[in-house]
């Protein structure tokens, strides 16, 4: 970072950071303490609503093999759906951006399609691929990812600075070059914000899709069967694993975003 203003020293900056994040750390500690003692002991919250934190951690440790195996199965479903759905969506957006009137006319319908409870279609995809196939979950995750990525990519491709396009035209750039040098780069922030949303949706699609069938070891099945057997700590541990996976998936996309958008003001401001 090169700047003419006097930069605060490293210690000063560290101190600022600590002061800024201190409340979050305190809340984290208080939250854990409440989970461990206040809720079960003082408020009498029963195990079937929220088991004690230490019980959940114990379940997490004791059943780590089962949980990790399930997590891996479910993650593969989510990731497959994410790649498939986002890939098809980006390709479709590129096509629709070439035929603007067509894309504009379809836009409201694509947005409305996003309001369809797609996970509710899991029983149908099970009928398509067979109850035990991972493909039903991949399909659900892919369709969940498809619409937000399509809408946002199209929005990004079409909301470019008209002056840049005009400049390109004045250099006699072909439509293809305009796409490569202007439209696609300036659509990237939109694409990545959609991909971040899609990473969450893919996880939801995979875990919740598991509830309707599939490999008996998948993470969603662990949640459900543990609830049925009243092993509440195990199901919370599985939820915890799913949450950590969700955060990691989201974080990975965010990291790629920061790398791909190094040149973009929104990223540079943050660093």
């Amino acid at each position, binding site marked *: 970072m090169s700047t003419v203003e006097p930069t605060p020293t490293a210690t000063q900056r560290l101190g600022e950071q600590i002061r800024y994040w201190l*409340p*979050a750390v305190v809340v984290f500690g208080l939250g854990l303490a409440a989970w461990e003692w206040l809720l079960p002991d003082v408020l009498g919250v029963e195990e079937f609503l929220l088991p004690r934190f230490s019980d959940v951690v114990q379940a997490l440790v004791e059943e780590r093999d089962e949980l990790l195996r399930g997590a891996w199965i479910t993650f593969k479903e989510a990731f497959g759906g994410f790649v498939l759905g986002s890939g098809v969506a980006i390709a479709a957006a590129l096509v629709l951006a070439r035929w603007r009137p067509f894309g504009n006319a379809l836009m409201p319908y694509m*947005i409305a399609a996003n309001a369809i*409870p797609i996970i509710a279609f899991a029983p149908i995809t099970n009928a398509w691929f067979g109850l035990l196939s991972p493909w039903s979950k991949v399909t659900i995750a892919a369709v969940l990812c498809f619409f937000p990525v399509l809408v946002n990519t199209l929005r990004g491709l079409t909301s470019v600075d008209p002056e840049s396009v005009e400049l390109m035209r004045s250099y006699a750039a072909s439509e293809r070059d305009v796409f490569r040098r202007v439209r696609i780069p300036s659509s990237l922030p939109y694409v990545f914000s959609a991909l971040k949303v899609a990473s969450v949706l893919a996880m939801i699609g995979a875990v919740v899709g598991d509830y309707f069938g599939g490999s008996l070891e998948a993470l969603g099945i662990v949640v459900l069967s543990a609830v049925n057997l009243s092993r509440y700590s195990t199901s919370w541990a599985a939820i915890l694993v799913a949450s950590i996976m*969700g955060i990691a998936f989201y974080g990975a996309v965010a990291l790629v975003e920061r790398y791909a958008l190094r040149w973009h003001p929104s990223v540079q401001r943050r660093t």
Partner: protein
Amino acid sequence: MAARVGKRVVTFLLVLGGLWALWEGYKWLWERTAWSKPFRVDDLTLPHAHAILLQLGESTSTGDDLWLFLIRAALFTAKSAAVGFAFGAVVGFFLGVVLVQFDVLRRGIMPYVVASQTIPILALAPIVVRGLGSVSIGGSPPPDWVRVSVIASYLTFFPVTVNTIRGLRSADPWALELMHSYAARGWTVLWKLRVPSALPYIFTALKIAATASVVGAIIGEQTASISNGLGGAILNFNQYYVLEPKNLWATNFYAALLGIGFFLVVLLAEKVVVHRAPERLV
């Protein structure tokens, strides 16, 4: 005006026709060539679109025609989703307002509310619905639709809180300074400046939450085997899918309409409340 409406109607019909053609064309091509990738197409896996519509006139085991049965189920699901949505939205909004007033609280809580947006909280549905079924309030567990609406409300609560805070903090600094220079009180600044400038953000969250609450209600019903709603109907018809696949398709068709309906209601409310043209006009 009339021309615009006419154009919209024509587009709508074209889209509908296009979808129908895609559906039937896909079915025809895959059946004709007997392709089994990605899945084998026949009347069981992909019934004719018109056959699904005609199925609505058939009577179900309850004695009602399917269309009426599904409307009852949709209303049950809609009630859970709407109550949960309203509750979550109100609580989320007020929490957002409180957190913006107290910066320490905001810094303490905001990271976790944001993190909630990156984890599959819908996956909690079975635990929450079953768990609440074991609670006793006044001698009996809460009614089924209340347990389901809890899911809809927490799915609504988190995005509304996040976006309320973002929106309230997005108020134009010049306008804020102007208000201060008139010695406007905090309350006035909040209602006259901050809340109006937060509305577009809040509606973005509400649109996401509208769909999520319908999804939450359906998944909640399914994982707890509550049979009166669309989720229950999906489970039930799924069991008899081999005998009559069209019932399940029709139920999912209603679920889709319910989700879109919720979304459109919020969209309409946005158009009424937010006078400035929203940037993402549908």
